[in-house]
Structure formats: C-alpha cells, structure tokens
C-alpha cells in the first residue's frame, strides 16, 4: 500500500523524469571527446600498421635486395616482385607492386624482410581516386619511404628491443 502510494506520487511529480533530465543536464557541460579530425589526431603507437613504404640506406641506395621473402610470406598474396641483375652485379627489383585491396596489413612482410626494406608506416588516411590506383608501384613506395623516413627510423629504434 505504502509502496504503491510512493510510486504513484513519484510518477505524478515526474520524479524519474527529473532524474533523467539531471543526467543529460550534467553531460551538457561535460568535456567533449570529439576529435576534430584533420586538425587534431589521436596519438598512434610506434607499432601502428598503416600504408607500406620501401626504405633506403642513408647513402641513397635502396635497401630491397629482391629476396622475395615478403612475397612468400604474404598471406593475402598482395605483393608481386620481379627482379634482375643490375650492372654492378647486385640483385634488384624491377617491379615491386602491393595491391592495397588484397593487403590485410598484418605486417608479416616487414617481419620477414632481412634488410628492413619494406615497412608499414603510421600513415593511414590515404585514398584512391581512380581504378587501378590501389596497386602501388615501386617508385611510389620508395617515395613514401623518403617522405616518412624520419618517423620510420625513430619508430624502429624505439621498438628495436622488443623485436
């Protein structure tokens, strides 16, 4: 009887409704968690696996020696490599294609690479505008490597003791 009276009074005086309003009213003034994306970015781990890149040695020589371990280990068969002997007698790639639609960003290629040539950078907000652009070629990969070399090097440095 008493409980029924109380619940009736509560519903008559909007008790629960006011409680709900209090909650939303409090959150109205709460700090907002939205990241204004292009201007603000969330911090990323040095182990972040984003877009691929091919690195060079400090003297400008490309690292990749066309051993094709990455091609072999790739679970999605996203990497295609052709190679030949250069004039100086070293083996180099003539073609290094990564199909980004096939790639699952597992990072196995980076782990398989004996010379730290192919890496996954932190760069993740890339896009394509035409059909066929999803296959990135060797030269583009090298360019990406040049563009992010500093970040790549420091990330590999900080993570070196865990590898």
């Amino acid at each position, binding site marked *: 009887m008493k409980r029924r009276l109380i619940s009736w009074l509560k519903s008559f005086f*909007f008790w629960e*409704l006011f409680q*709900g*309003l209090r*909650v*939303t*009213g409090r*959150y*109205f*003034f*709460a*700090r*907002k*968690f*939205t990241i*204004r994306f292009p201007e603000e970015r969330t911090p990323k781990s040095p182990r972040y696996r984003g877009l691929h890149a091919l690195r060079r040695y400090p003297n400008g020589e490309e690292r990749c020696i066309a051993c094709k371990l990455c091609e072999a280990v790739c679970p999605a068969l996203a990497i295609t490599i052709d190679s030949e002997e250069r004039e100086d007698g070293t083996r180099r790639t003539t073609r290094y294609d990564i199909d980004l639609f096939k790639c699952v960003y597992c990072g196995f290629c980076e782990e398989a690479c004996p010379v730290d040539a192919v890496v996954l950078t932190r760069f993740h907000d890339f896009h394509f505008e035409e059909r066929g652009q999803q296959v990135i070629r060797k030269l583009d990969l090298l360019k990406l490597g040049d563009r992010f070399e500093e970040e790549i090097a420091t990330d590999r440095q900080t993570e070196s003791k865990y590898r």
Partner: protein
Amino acid sequence: MIDQAMQSVLGWWQLLPGGWRLLLWNTGKILLVMIPLMLAVAYYTLAERKVIGFMQVRLGPNRVGYHGLLQPFADAIKLMFKEVILPTNADRFLFLSAPVLVLGPSLAAWVVIPFDEGLSIANIDAGLLYILAVSSVTVYGVILAGWASNSKYAFLGAMRSAAQMVAYEIAMGFALVGVLMISGSLNLGHIVHSQNGGILHWHLLPLLPLFFVYMISGIAETNRAPFDVVEGESEIVAGFHVEYSGITFAMFFLAEYANMILISALIAIMFLGGWLSPLQGIVPDSVFAIPVIGLLLGHGIHWLIFKTAFFMFNYLWFRATFPRYRYDQIMRLGWKVFLPITIVWLVIEGLAAYFKLPPWFN
C-alpha cells in the same frame, strides 16, 4: 541630405491611396515578424543539433562557418536545390498542397502573439480562440500529406498523428480554459496584463498542474520526442513526410520548428507573464527609472524572448533525454491522465474564484 530623403519618402507615402498604404503597412508588420521568426527557426535547428550533441558528449556540427554557425544556411540551400520527387501514384494536387496547409497555420498563429505592450500584428479579442482554431488546421495538412503520398508508412504516420493531435488538443484546450478563467479574457494582451504585479501574480503558481499539462501536450501536439511516434524513425521511416523531398520537406520541417517556437511563446505568455519582468515587485520601482539598466530589468520584449528560449531549450532537453512513448501509452496519458487532471483543476480553480482567493482572484 537625410532630411530631404525622408521628406521625399514621406511625400510618396502621402501620395499613395489609403488602401495601398494599409496593405504596405501590414505587409511591413508581417515581414517584421516573419523574418526574425524564420531566422529563429533556422538557428533553432542548429541549436537542436548542438544541444543534443553536447548532451551526448559530442560537439555537433562545427564545419560550416565558425562553430558551425552557417550550417542552417547550408542546409537551406541544399534543400532548395534538391529535386522534389512526386511519387507515381500520388495525388499531385493534394501532395503539393499539404506542406502549405501545414506551414500556413503555424505562421498565421503568430498574428495574435503580443510581443510587448500593444505590439502585435492584430489585436484580436478572441486571440486564444483564434490560436486554438488555427493550430488545429495543421492536422489536416498532416493527414493530407500521409494520404496523398500513397505510401503505407506515410499513411500510418498520418493516422497516428491525427489520433494523437486530436487527443492532446482536448487536454490543451482545457488547460487554456483554466487560463481564461483566471484572466477573464481571450485577448492575449489582456491575459498578460492580468498577470501584472510581480512573479507571484503570474498564472504559473495557481495553474501549476495546467502548466505542466499544457507544456507536455504542447510537445505531443508538435509531434516532438518523446511523443514522436508520428515520425517514429525506427518504426515507420519518417512518418507522414517519407515521400517528401527538397523544398516540400523543408516546409514540413519549418512548420514543425515554427510550431515549437509558437508553443513556447504561448506558454511564456499564458503562464509566465509574457513580456512582464520577473523582477517587478522584488526590486524597488525606482530601479526601473535608471536609463539602461531599468530598460533591461523592466518589462519588455526581451523577457518574452528569454522565457520563450527557456521552453525552446526544454524541447531539446527532453528530446535528448526521454525514450519514445509507446502508442497506447500516449493515448492513455492524453485521455486518462491529462483530461481528468485538467477537469479537477478547473473545479478547484472555480472554487478559488468563488472565494476570491488573493492575489489571483480579486
């Protein structure tokens, strides 16, 4: 130079025939109300998205202009340039006249709103009756929209809205009967005048249950959350305006927000003393004589705007807080709760009037 311009303008004004002068004068008055109202509607949509965003710990639109301040214009331009799609089996005439029937009354009702002492487009003695009559016409537009679309979702939405609006119209009407009993007039200006004399003289206190009934019925009447089964996004897509696009949809949108502002203004006028200052009777009268501060603290249109804005914010707050009512619960609330409450309170009010309870009934 300015004097000469004024003289020539005045000269032209005198030259015009009387009928033309009346027409121009009234058109000017209507524009003076409509343009701020349209701007208010535009920014009300932005405020809604911002407020609900803030309550959900988001930021809301902030890309177009400074903090998203140009967003309403972007939305309006987009809607204007979108194609108006006519469904194949729709009744063309009814389909296109429904938005007009919805928007027309919600703007027409603003004619009798007193913004300040004697400041309204038309000072009608039966203003309250006029508002009740005009706001009921909106239902026809909604039903026509649902019927003419020839779509089951729209039809269901229209049926729901017809039942809901009729049910809450009655509770609303009874709440207004309470207001006219206490003020003894149907003229909205007189209703405000009857609340003159300080915050205790407002109708809020003696009519507290009617105030809540009116506020909640107002939300149901404008089909807003938590009474938005009419639109019922998760159930019937968008209700009666599923088939509308472009500018026809924009008109429904405009009408809805204009109605919300109208209801907020009516609550402010009928229960919270319209343009009357809440400080009247609290601070000494000599304060109101001080040049600028007195103007701000004294009676004026800014108090009406402030009170209206409070209830407009409430609409958004409720939408961000409450889940949608079930359809049978809405009907139960309208017929079995609000109607008895209003009738009981009318009896109590009648007794108070009979015994001349001060300070309201004397």
